[in-house]
């Protein structure tokens, strides 16, 4: 399954700025590398995390002078917002004395169309606005349809706001189509008294599935690999692995998104602490243990790791072959310092169990998933 990539604000602004959207001048910073910001202030220091609500969490701070910059940066970089430790900041020129508008293009799964939205009352609380304040039109993902919808929602706003929404909106329509976006929101879109506008905040999601036809996005992710560890991991390794709890104790080597998610739920409900989500796609390994090696190596990075659970439900894959690959991966990894509970169910399960038993590696084999989860809690009781 291909996911949506939530671009960090800074990256979204760089992309859209290059496509003619006016955005405040700004630089990317980190706690220990603080480039000189443009202008004379005031500035806004913003945590770059792929999640909404950073303002409420203290991740956005206005500073009046250069003296305040480092202090604000230090404070924000100390934050963890909804599980994401803040590692990067965007420092940009503040936009004072402006009205806050809203314009956005959002994928609507229910209709498979784009909702074009605009409001004369933008700001952080857009979701909490009265329904009547937001104007919505549904459009097909082509320029004519999106432009017509944009004209309609803009037409419901006061003239200056309408012009700003129309102009800024035209840029995001083009970007949506060019970049295979699934969401672009300007919120706020600042409208100055003189009628000029500038995009105060940008949220932009792009479609991971479209990356093969988006060389620009691919280059961006390459340049900013550290900021998109999961997308880069997936691109490099061909499967999904997401650390859900850096303090987690149980590493997962699992196939299938739904079942892996469910495993995390059931473990969590039973008081266990899974370290990661994972969809290794066992059907696509083609005789190469590389994914297994990378998966196990990655979960072993968890500082509190106590156990690894391998859970493969094989509809099509032959599990005997998988078992062989697992042993190869373990050989390549050398000593694995935690016990492995292995649950292989499906096509060739008997052969797989026999292969693993014969290896003498002391793997803990268990067919029943509930018992396998229990064994993860106390692998020492297993009669391996």
């Amino acid at each position, binding site marked *: *399954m*291909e*996911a*949506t990539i*939530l671009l960090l604000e800074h990256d979204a602004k760089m992309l859209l700025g290059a496509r003619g959207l006016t955005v405040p001048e700004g630089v990317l910073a980190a706690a220990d590398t603080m480039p000189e910001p443009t202008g004379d202030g005031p500035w806004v220091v913003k945590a770059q*995390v*792929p*999640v*909404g*609500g950073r303002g409420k969490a203290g991740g956005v701070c206005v500073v009046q002078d250069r003296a305040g910059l480092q202090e604000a940066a230090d404070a924000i970089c100390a934050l963890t917002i*909804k*599980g*994401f430790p803040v590692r990067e900041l965007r420092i940009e020129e503040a936009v004072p004395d402006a009205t806050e508008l809203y314009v956005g293009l959002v*994928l609507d*799964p*229910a209709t*498979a*169309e*784009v909702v074009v939205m605009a409001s004369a009352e933008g700001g952080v609380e857009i*979701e909490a606005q009265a329904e009547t304040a937001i104007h919505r039109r549904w459009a*097909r*993902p082509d320029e004519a349809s999106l432009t017509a919808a944009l004209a309609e929602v803009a037409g419901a706003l006061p003239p200056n706001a309408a012009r700003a929404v129309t102009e800024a909106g035209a840029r995001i329509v083009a970007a949506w*189509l060019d970049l*295979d976006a*699934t969401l672009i929101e300007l919120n706020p879109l600042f409208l100055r008294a003189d009628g000029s506008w500038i995009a105060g905040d940008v949220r932009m999601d792009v*479609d*991971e*599935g*479209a990356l*093969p*036809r988006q060389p620009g996005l691919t280059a961006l992710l390459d340049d900013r690999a550290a900021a998109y560890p*999961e997308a880069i991991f997936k691109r490099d390794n061909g499967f*999904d692995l*997401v650390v*859900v*709890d850096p303090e987690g104790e149980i590493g997962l080597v699992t*196939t*299938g*998104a*739904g*079942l*892996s*998610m*469910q495993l*995390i*739920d*059931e473990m*969590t*409900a039973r008081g266990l602490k*899974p370290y990661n*989500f994972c*969809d290794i796609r066992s059907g696509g390994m083609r005789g190469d243990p590389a994914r297994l090696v990378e998966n196990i190596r990655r979960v072993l990075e968890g500082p509190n790791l106590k156990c690894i659970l391998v859970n493969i*439900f*094989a*509809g*099509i894959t032959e599990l005997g072959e998988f078992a062989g690959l697992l042993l190869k991966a373990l050989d390549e990894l050398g000593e694995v310092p935690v016990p492995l509970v292995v649950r292989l*169910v499906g*096509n060739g399960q008997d052969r797989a169990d026999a292969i693993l038993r014969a290896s003498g590696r002391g793997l803990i084999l268990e067919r029943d*998933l*509930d018992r396998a989860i229990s064994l993860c809690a106390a692998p020492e009781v297993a009669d391996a």
Partner: protein
Amino acid sequence: MLEQLIDPAAPQVPVMVQGATGRAARQHIKLMLGHGTNIVAGISPKAAGEVQDGVPIFATCAEAVEGTGARVSLPMVPPMSVLPAAREALEAGVRLIVTVTEGMPVRDAMHLHALIREHGAEWTGASSPGLAVPGRCKLGFLPDACLALGPIALWSKSGTLSYETALRLKSRGLGQSAWIGVGGDAVKGTRFADLVPLFRDHTPTRAVVIVGEIGGTEEEDLAARLAQEPLDKPVYAILAGSAAPEGKTMGHAGAIVSGGKGTFESKAEALQSAGVHVFRAIPPLVDRVAQDFQKETA
């Protein structure tokens, strides 16, 4: 066409497979044939005129439809080729497209959705794990080990979670009347709510099990539909992702909690108020379904 597909008393629908000569396609065509699927044609310009595992290969969809009367197409092609493949099939007159490819671009999915409406056709996907009526037909990847004819309609976003659920229900004697994998995509052809009218009078179905997950509003939309047009049979749901952190995409494109939307709680509440029994783990769901059936047959 989906309705005919799930009606065991209707003649089997003739199916064609686009990209039939690919390695995985060939493997799955054999498995689908082995499950009784009426695959009448494959499409592959470079193998046109050949016969592969008993299936004649055509150069184009139009020729295949002309030659075999295929009404359903299963494109087994790379992600970027799904849209053009589906378009060709629709223009050749196919009435149902089932796409199973992972990674079809969202914008392509939106285009296909519009095309489907224009043709008055049906689409299941983008990345459906498959559809099946056990013993009758199987389109896609659903593992044979999980398939067993029985009283349960299984509607699922996830492949693997539904495999695990199906296998455990099967071990309690409860197979499937039909299994529709709608896929975990944000933009998709068939959504849970679309299945309600199809299954209302589906006599082999005595209960529905939904395999849902966090993200999007599909479960909420289903709940709204069920509240308006009850199914008249028990509905159970397992929802994955109750422990997923916000802002992390959990494999499926749609499986992300964002801005407080698409949460487990929102879905569970909506479904429960529509009379659905909601679970966050498989064992209690399976126990409950099995108990209810035991009571009924006792």
